[in-house]
């Protein structure tokens, strides 16, 4: 069934969008990532204009994260306190990110920078996570208890705060900085930033994996909600019909995903996320390295 999207001004198959939303929703619920880093390139592929894809995707992530967070709240796997600290950093970062983005746009080459950001961040994070989870699986197989809560420089910082749900007593500075960094990247790359946030919480802050997913989703809701509003008011590129189609699939998927995620071991969950991140990274890297079949591209005129 074809549906004409009023803002994107293209006609697409409604069931295709429902399906895409569902698949990305499952991943979102399982891993605590918004799924934007998967969905946005997929939307490009089916012919949605990039500006509309990025903006609408932010709106869809609001829905799937909200659905996911409700499931996690019931299970008490959301650290609201940590989430709020991350969120404060995130909003500051998002605002900074918009400034950076506009500066880069004026310099040209913003597309390239976004892609390079993707490749570098996805590659580094995916690679680190993959190696770490492999080691963790090997350790549990050999029967040794996993080493946790190593004290490092992070624990020496001032302004300590107790995060009961995460079982942490650390300074608020690292989570704030993580929030800012993720916010900046989120605004530039047009994603919720879960795929950066989740590993940062696990490896930098030392939060337990089970809490990480819910907390990440919690702060993603606000960051992507903020992004949606920014796009809707400045670029007029949020397509609500597209968003509704994606989010109907997405919210159902997120519910299923959360349930799958609970049944899986933390290491398995991490290794799967790592593989997925690496796959997307590989695809984007190939796009940059291989000669494209069409060297030319058509875009709106500069300054319009």
């Amino acid at each position, binding site marked *: 069934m074809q549906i004409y999207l009023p*803002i994107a001004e*293209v*006609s697409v198959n409604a069931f295709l969008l429902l399906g895409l939303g569902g698949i990305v929703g499952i991943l979102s619920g399982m891993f605590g990532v918004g799924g934007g880093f998967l969905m946005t390139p997929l939307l490009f592929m089916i012919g949605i204009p990039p500006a509309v894809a990025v903006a609408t995707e932010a*709106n869809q992530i609001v829905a799937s994260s909200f659905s996911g967070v409700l499931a996690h709240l019931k299970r008490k796997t959301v650290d609201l306190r940590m989430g709020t600290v991350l969120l404060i950093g995130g909003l500051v970062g998002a605002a900074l990110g918009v400034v950076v983005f506009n500066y880069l746009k004026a310099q040209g080459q913003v597309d*390239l920078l976004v892609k390079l950001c993707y490749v570098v961040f996805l590659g580094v994070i995916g690679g680190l996570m993959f190696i770490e989870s492999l080691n963790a699986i090997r350790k549990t197989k050999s029967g040794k208890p996993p080493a946790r809560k190593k004290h490092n420089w992070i624990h020496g910082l001032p302004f300590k705060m107790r995060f009961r749900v995460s079982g942490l007593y650390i300074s608020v500075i690292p989570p704030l900085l993580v929030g800012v960094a993720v916010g900046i990247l989120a605004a530039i790359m047009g994603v919720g930033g879960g795929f950066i946030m989740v590993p940062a919480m696990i490896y930098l802050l030392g939060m337990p994996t089970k809490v990480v997913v819910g907390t990440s989703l919690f702060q993603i809701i606000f960051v992507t909600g903020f992004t949606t509003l920014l796009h809707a008011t400045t670029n007029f590129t949020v397509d*609500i019909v597209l*968003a509704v189609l994606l989010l109907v699939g997405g919210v159902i998927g*997120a519910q299923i995903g959360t349930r799958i995620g609970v049944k899986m071991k933390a290491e398995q969950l991490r290794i799967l996320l790592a593989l997925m991140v690496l796959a997307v990274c590989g695809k984007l890297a190939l796009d940059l390295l291989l000669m494209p079949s069409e060297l*030319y591209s058509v875009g709106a005129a500069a300054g319009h």
Partner: protein
Amino acid sequence: MPRFLTALLALSLLCTGPLWAEEVVLGLSKDKVSITTSFDGSDILIFGAVKREKAIPEGPPIEVIVTVAGPSMPLTVRRKAKRLGIWVNTDAVEVDRAPSFYAVQTSGPLREVLKDVEDLRHKISVPRAIRSVGAPSNISDAESFTEALIRIRSRSDLYQLREDAVTVSEQTLFRTAVRLPAALTEGDYVTRIFLTRDGQVISSYDTTIDVQKVGLERWLFELSRGQPLLYGIMSIAIAIAAGWAASAVFRMFRA
């Protein structure tokens, strides 16, 4: 003064007189295309007749060219090149005006039914319909950018050249169907009909087809432009509601 004007009018009538010998009477299957939610492209039947005072002139037969053009917009065409091992956009050429949609349908091979000079004057063929003045001095092959634009848009049926698509019977009646693709931009679609003989345009006629979003599409589009903040808040509210609803429905199933 009035006498002067009358004389001028008479003179101009006299000059254009021969062109009026054969003119177009046009019909459209519809002069308004409504984009609804289920819009999936549209076929427009364009038909008409050649009206003449005298008998059909001797010589080469009459040929008909029909063009339909969507709203024009300035564009940037970029080209990628390999720099430091990766493919990046390097050169860019600004195209001053390029129609968002452009279809040319003719009753015979375009080069035979239309002389180059006439094409230049009336801007009929696809490359002529795109106006591109002055590429940056560092780009020597500006034409390849226009060619790329045509190639990319032809691939998605936005630019069409269909020769022999207009049927002309007895040098008087003609008909053709133009297929508007699903990915259509709103606006006035200028439809032009040219009558040619021996490659010379002897008469032309133009009208517009109104392409407009209607109903829900119209409402959403206008809300997003007129009340962007409200639209944004509505989008988020729908997202939150959908997220909550899905969660509630699943909880019901579990309970």
